[in-house]
């Protein structure tokens, strides 16, 4: 097997973005295309699985051809096809998985099934300045909030995760409740940017200060209750200030637990991953805190935090190096047991 010039075609359809990318040697992005469906789902106020799946099948073929064209590669020069096959919306995943399987088969190239959350973490490796192990990784998205410990590639030890809502889910629910719009993360961030935290007070939910479990459902409910109360009281309720306080309360807990996790494991590297890693306040605060604690922080470029296929190709590259290929029976799964690989065996 060749050791350099390895080109992986990555395919991603787990939620509402159809994405195809070509990545060489795990960090040279030859092309990275995303067909976003945000506008399509906006009128529904959230991602509709059937609508997302219909859009994926409409664009997957042309997006793949464009990605190869932009990479300047004939398709025969691809070394493997990597596809996100879990977790995600099952009908949406199945479009990418079915396409990728047939494409790899038609090219007679190996197929690699990639975990979408693992791919988010690997977005941190799409750079010259790659993270060094051991490291602690904070994964924050619409479906996940976890702190993981990594000693080497592709091994994850779960340190703690959310017991209820994921951070991104809390953003979405609060944004909808406050009428800030869709998608929730950017909507709250934009509102918060027009105000500052502290005018209202929301709790910082740490559960046990010494463990790495999260809980955001209480914070979400507190924000909603406070909003209702403000509106009943006749004071002028200022939604931007509430958004700012909510964001601050959530970010503060994420940052403090991440720093504590790095300290406990005595590591000097923290990786931030997942869609919520695009949040400006989180990026700002975790960068400041890490530097104050003499820890190096890795955060993917903005466009690599949200769903994309370069991260899938990157994770696929490390599986390629391990010879971890999928069979013709590769399937899609809505949930995945990843990120507990090591802890649960």
């Amino acid at each position: 097997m060749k050791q350099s010039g390895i080109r992986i075609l990555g395919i991603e359809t787990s939620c509402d973005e159809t994405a195809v990318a070509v990545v060489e040697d795990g960090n040279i992005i030859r092309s990275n295309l995303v067909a976003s469906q945000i506008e399509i789902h906006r009128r529904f106020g959230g991602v509709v699985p059937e609508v997302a799946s219909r859009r994926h099948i409409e664009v997957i073929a042309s997006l793949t051809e464009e990605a190869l064209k932009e990479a300047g590669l004939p398709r025969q020069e691809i070394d493997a096809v990597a596809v996100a096959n879990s977790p995600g919306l099952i009908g949406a995943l199945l479009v990418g998985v079915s396409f990728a399987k047939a494409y790899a088969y038609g090219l007679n190239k190996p197929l690699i099934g990639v975990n979408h959350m693992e791919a988010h973490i690997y977005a941190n490796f799409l750079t010259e300045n790659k993270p060094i192990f051991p490291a602690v990784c904070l994964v924050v998205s619409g479906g996940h909030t976890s702190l993981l410990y990594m000693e080497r590639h592709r091994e994850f030890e779960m340190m703690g995760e959310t017991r209820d809502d994921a951070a991104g889910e809390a953003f979405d629910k609060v944004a909808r409740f406050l009428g800030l719009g869709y998608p929730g993360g950017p909507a709250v961030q934009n509102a918060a940017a027009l105000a500052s935290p502290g005018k209202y007070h929301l709790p910082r939910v740490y559960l046990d200060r010494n463990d790495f479990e999260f809980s955001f459902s209480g914070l979400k409910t507190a924000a909603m209750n406070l909003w209702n109360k403000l509106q009943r009281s006749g004071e002028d309720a200022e939604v931007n200030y509430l958004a700012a306080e909510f964001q601050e309360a959530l970010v503060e807990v994420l940052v403090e637990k991440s720093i504590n996790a790095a300290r406990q494991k005595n590591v000097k590297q923290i990786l931030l991953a997942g869609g919520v890693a695009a949040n400006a306040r989180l990026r700002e605060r975790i960068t400041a805190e890490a530097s104050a604690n003499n820890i190096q922080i890795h955060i993917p470029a903005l466009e690599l935090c949200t769903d994309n296929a370069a991260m899938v190709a990157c994770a696929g590259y490390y599986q390629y190096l391990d010879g971890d290929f999928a069979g013709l029976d590769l399937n899609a799964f809505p949930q995945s047991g990843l990120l507990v690989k090591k802890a649960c065996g």
Partner: protein
Amino acid sequence: MLILSIDTATPSAGVALVDEKGLRYEAVANTGYKHSRTLLDMIDVAFRQTDYVLRDVDAIGVTSGPGSFTGLRIGMASAKGLALAAEKPVIGIPTLDAMAFHIAWVPALICPILNARKGEIYGAFYQGGPGPLKRVSDYLALSPPALAETARTYMDQLDLGTISLVGDGVDEYRSQLHDLLGGAMVCPEEPWLPRASSTGHLAFRRLIQGDIDDVFSLNPIYVRQSEAENRLAKGKGAR
């Protein structure tokens, strides 16, 4: 000229190879929705059990709908992936056309029906033999009474005394349709789900006419819009 055809529109998955001499190979797995796991393996077995290789294939035929939304997309995504990677044209064959083909010679109004759930059936109307099979309606999603009424209209229009139904919709609605259509209704015993071989035969006919589909714009025929679109249209809010 060789067609590789795939069908995953219903709980039955199928793969076939069809050439000018007719059906060369067919496999059917009527074992429920496992298509994503089994389809590519079935294709691989088809090649291994015949002397053909993917390079020999001149076009890929795929059952294009209506049917299970997810099933249709598994077939369509697989067809597109194969077609692009192996540089083959793709030909979409509507599910109901493939089903009507099973009994194309019957001199009656032919109506393939698939259980569409929610009290409806997917169906379409065709004028059967002795001439070539001719579709006379759109692909529809109808309640059994609406289907019977539409059937009556076409029977009068085409001066046909009988209607022949095929498909798994017959199983579910046999007695209700019998009450509605009376002695005019005839059905084969076998429910006749769509078959990859029928899709293959019809794709072959199109290929020799040079009538192929564009791999980028070919899409499943859903007939129905998504539930979320329905609710939005009715002003109920999508969620």
